């Protein structure tokens, strides 16, 4: 198992306690604390997620996230079904990005069984992963602005663009969100030239949408007032809590699995990794917008040099697949962060241990540290900027 290369800007000293802010010091005598329970049916928590917030006046002094409402026993289920049968279940992990979930699982099984993947399949996987990144970041920008309260306008623009990408997935894999498209050793179907032309047309049009979206949001003084300076995450805390993905890069830490691991054919594309400086909600939003612009570059290059050839390795065995006993941990840079699958095989068609490392769950652990001292209105936006999907948090 290759240990990840230590990120270059690893800060030296780590603060002793993760939360350097003031914990709840108010006793009942001094000021009467108001306990507010937000969720699990709260309109602004993303799915079934509950926050027990203790308020001193307007300021938050304690925030206890409660989740598990969407627990579907995913990992135990994985141990009782064959490797192939677990693939459709990975769509349901982070139900916004099924293509990247499938790819992470496929990479883990291929590492376990030493399965080779043809060139064309690698390129198609990169195209699908970058399309999913566009989709996820567009959704995030929409939800974040919906939490700040602009009655749905950015959300509708985001969904208008998302629908175009989902139509592409539907015409390729048969279903908009539950694609179940990757197999061990390649993809299930070979994309047709018409499909690739449609992707090229979408990619060309996406830049215009982003410019319009940024004109509406990024320069808006109210958005800047609401998000700049709220929910600040320090690099040290982010690294010690294992945060990955755009949230980590927003704090300035240069750690992107596509560059660190160089899995798939990513080293062949040149793209840049944007880094934030303040680690607050505005940075997390802007990092995702800039990452979308980088994804468009990657998509253009991938579409340009997509090779011909088989989409699935001829020797690939999907049904009755019995990998040699052993263990493997495959991970990719999902839109929300590092999503990894840890598999232990004992030679039987079912994995002995099937573990998912979801980025949303790990990123959620520091919600309280970011919300201390902020107001309730900020807590809602900070939760939105972490970009969690409860399917992945609870599994």
């Amino acid at each position, binding site marked *: 198992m290759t240990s990840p290369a230590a990120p270059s800007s690893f800060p030296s000293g780590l603060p002793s306690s993760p939360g350097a802010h003031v914990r709840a010091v108010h006793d009942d005598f001094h000021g009467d604390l108001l306990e507010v329970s937000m969720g699990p049916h709260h309109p602004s928590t993303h799915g079934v997620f509950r926050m027990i917030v203790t308020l001193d006046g307007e300021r938050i002094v304690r925030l206890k996230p409660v989740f598990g409402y969407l627990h579907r026993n995913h990992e135990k289920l994985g141990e009782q079904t064959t490797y192939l049968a677990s693939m459709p279940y990975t769509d349901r992990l982070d139900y916004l990005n099924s293509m990247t979930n499938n790819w992470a699982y496929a990479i883990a099984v291929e590492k376990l069984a030493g399965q080779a993947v043809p060139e064309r399949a690698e390129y198609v996987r990169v195209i699908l992963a970058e399309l999913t990144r566009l989709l996820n970041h567009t959704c995030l920008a929409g939800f974040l602005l919906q939490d700040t309260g602009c009655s749905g306008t950015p959300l509708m623009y985001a969904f208008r663009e998302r629908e175009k990408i989902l*139509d592409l997935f539907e015409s*390729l894999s048969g279903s908009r969100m539950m694609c*179940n498209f990757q197999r061990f050793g390649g993809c299930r179907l070979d994309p*047709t030239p018409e*499909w690739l032309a449609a992707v090229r047309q979408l990619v060309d049009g996406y830049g215009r949408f982003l410019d319009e979206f940024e004109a*509406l949001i990024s320069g*808006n*003084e109210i958005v800047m007032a609401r998000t700049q300076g709220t929910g600040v995450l320090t690099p040290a805390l982010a690294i010690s809590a294992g945060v990955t993905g755009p949230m980590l890069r927003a704090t300035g830490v240069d750690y992107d699995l596509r560059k660190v691991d160089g899995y798939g054919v990513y080293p062949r594309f040149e793209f840049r990794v944007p880094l934030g400086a303040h680690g607050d909600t505005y940075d997390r939003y802007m990092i995702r917008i800039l990452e979308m612009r980088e994804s468009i570059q990657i998509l253009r290059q991938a579409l340009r040099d997509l090779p011909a050839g088989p989409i699935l390795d*001829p020797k690939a065995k999907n*049904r009755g697949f019995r990998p040699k006993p052993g263990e493997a941990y495959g991970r990719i840079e999902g839109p929300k962060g590092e999503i990894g699958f840890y598999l232990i095989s004992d030679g039987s068609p079912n994995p002995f241990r099937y573990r998912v490392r979801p980025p949303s769950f790990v990123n959620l652990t520091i919600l309280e540290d970011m919300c201390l001292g902020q107001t309730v209105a900020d807590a809602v936006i900070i939760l939105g900027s972490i970009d969690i999907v409860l399917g992945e948090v609870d599994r």
Partner: protein
Amino acid sequence: MLGTGLLQGLAVTAKNLVGSFHDPERYVTMEYPEVKTKLPENYRNFPFLVHDDPKDPLGSLRCVACTICETECPPQCIYIVMDRDEKGKALKRPKVFDIDISVCMSCQICVEVCPFDAIKMDQHYEIAETNRFQGLLLSREQLSKSNAYYHQLHPTEAAAVDALLAEQKAKQAAAKAAKAAPAAKPPAPAAPAANPPPPPAPSAEAPKPPTPPAP
């Protein structure tokens, strides 16, 4: 200056307001019952069984009740009982083939693993039912649909499957002819009743990548 970002935002919303009256790009609503979206060819919702001869839908089912799909189905929503004649000899036909489509997540793994191209994905999504158990438990009779229907749903894929089957039948006929030729002298062996097309080489269970379907 303080208000410029806000004015920019207003300009964008105004452009969308005006654009939604003339620019198809900015008016994306399809009013569902009147206007239905054109489903792409690859769209898949729930499986159905393919039969070749419309006159005898249950007899000419391609399915030979080999229960591969039953074992491979992730949510285990397929239930097959093989048909046996009075002496108990297995007939290569399913007596009972139930799919509980309230459990099925239409992941089309059954289509992938079926060596006989007997089960394909349907495209109907308006399946509201009042009764969850009887209504959504489709039996063999409701599942069985003609090959022509399959052609209508997935034209390119159906054409590829037919070509493959025809080619197998030709190979199989040639093999029989070759077997029949050297055995001209010994009496011709009793041809098995419904000679199933031999499953392709067991080792390469790889799902046949049918030729690329048009989006």
